[in-house]
């Protein structure tokens, strides 16, 4: 099984780099994954990650993109509450890339 090493720990990931167990996540994991992609995590990135994890804890799934957009608008201002801004933060797509950083499984289906 592939693994990643960060923060002095080893984490199991799947073939696409998603954590096998979302509960053993730490902030260092997100930082490490972002660095691998050449991204530096800003407060805005963290806002998304925290929201995703909270939502997942409650519903066992990541939120719909529009729910995420609205949340960002609420916390960071309406000018940032749009899909484009989320793609600026997570160029590979907010659902997949942000979920991966947040330690959550990849959304499946026609998405």
């Amino acid at each position, binding site marked *: 099984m592939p693994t990643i090493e960060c923060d002095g720990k080893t984490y199991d990931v799947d*073939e*696409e*780099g998603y954590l096998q167990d979302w509960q053993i996540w730490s902030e260092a994991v997100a930082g490490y994954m972002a660095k*691998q*992609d050449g991204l530096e995590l800003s407060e805005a990135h963290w806002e998304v990650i925290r929201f995703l994890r909270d939502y997942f804890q*409650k*519903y*066992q*799934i990541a*939120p*719909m*993109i*529009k*729910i995420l957009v*609205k949340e960002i608008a609420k916390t960071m201002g309406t000018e940032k509450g749009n*899909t*484009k801004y989320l*793609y600026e933060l997570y160029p590979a*797509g907010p*659902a*997949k890339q942000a979920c991966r950083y947040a330690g959550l499984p990849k*959304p*499946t*289906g*026609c*998405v």
Partner: protein
Amino acid sequence: MAGKVEAPVLGGKIEIPKVQYGASKDQRVIPAKPDLMQKLNFPSERPPDWRERFLEKMAEVIKKYRSVRLFLDICVRCGACTDKCHFFIGTGDPRNMPVYRQEMMRSVYRRYFTTGGKLFRKLAGAEDLTEQMLEQWATYYYQCSGCRRCSVFCPYGIDTAEITYAAREIMDSIGIGSKYTLEIINKAETIGNNLGLTEPALRNTLDFVEEEIKENTGADVKLPLNVEGADILLVTPSADFFATPHIESLTGYAKVFHQAGVSWTLSSYASEAANFGLFVGNYAHMKAINKRIWDMARQLKVKRVIIGECGHAWRVLYSFSNTLNGPFDFLDSRYKVPQHICEFTLDLAKKRAFKFDKSANDNFTVTFHDSCNVARGSRMGDTPGDQFTMPRELINLTCNKFFDMPEGTIKEKTFCCGAGGGLLTDELIDLRLKAAVTRMQAYKDVKEKHNVNFLALICAICKAQFTKILPYYKYDMEEVGGVHQLISNAIVLGAKEGV
């Protein structure tokens, strides 16, 4: 992760490439893990006697699906199909020519199932079932989206999709499966939808949509869930509850039902229209997924079942559901069973049940991409070809500016989005970009001629694929959306034209 992928450069027209052997041999799906294979009643991994099992399964498949055997027998190698597949046009790999894709199965068929092949081997076009052959199957039967475009041009009507799906079924039976497709089948069968959306999450999402509509229009439009005794059960792809722009069409359906004044419901148990069982040619899984809809229609005592914007879901419900789980004979026979959301909306629109403000879509100049499984795998309405005219009529009722892409790229000859049939997965992004080149060329054509800036769709896979790839082609992802998104924009809530 993967290296940088880029979209092909769009020339002025769709060009047939030079043949490049092995050009896309490295585009492979991620294999399903042993535990997932096992959950779906497949062998967890390839057994030592895989050849025997493969041939046993193949014998079963060609016996059960007589069409497959017929297609293997009747090809005359005329070559009419060779340049019709966008996977070939996009990659130049001859294994993506439909005839050559079929040849992988045909040569094994000749070798083990025909007298000529058994006796004369290569002279009769027969090939041994080797590791290398299996490797080719696992690669190129996952580079076909089962869109059936080639079958339109084949003088014998050979349907490569049937062969592709049969090949995947045979591979699954020896422990070789696609993670993407099988994970989805597992979620659909255990949770009720491809996403794995639980009932509380679904309710939360629907509440959100209700609030959005209220904020934007002031109207109290409801999205009911699990309501027994509702007249209509709407079954839609679960992407409609998650992704953008899919969600805009869900909003559209809700507004249409609201305005029509009908009672309707969604179901958390049957919260998926898509049926990936089709994509792996597996009758048992296709049946199990379809049964959820059938059971829920009965349990909720609805009179009608309506299917949202999903191409292959419509094909399965329209063409196969009766055979899979029996007829929906408990539904109200005065209505079409099942019914496509476009049929429902257009029927009432023609009776002037809705008022549309076309100017709400004036910032869009629209074109329409016919989804393969609707265009070639099923029908709508009462007369042949209604599956082409009905979505266009809906667009014209709700938009002022509509232009079709060039002939030969639409209607029955439509190109696939490049990611149908189980290929909408990240590891195939390079292939998906290349396979979309024909559609993108046609789109560019109408953009240049008519300033088109909106690609209207009636399929969740098409929506996800184009949203993903348009930016690679330097177009805005917001140019992608659903037909019911346009309806959602234009429908005037609280107002009726006639009735």
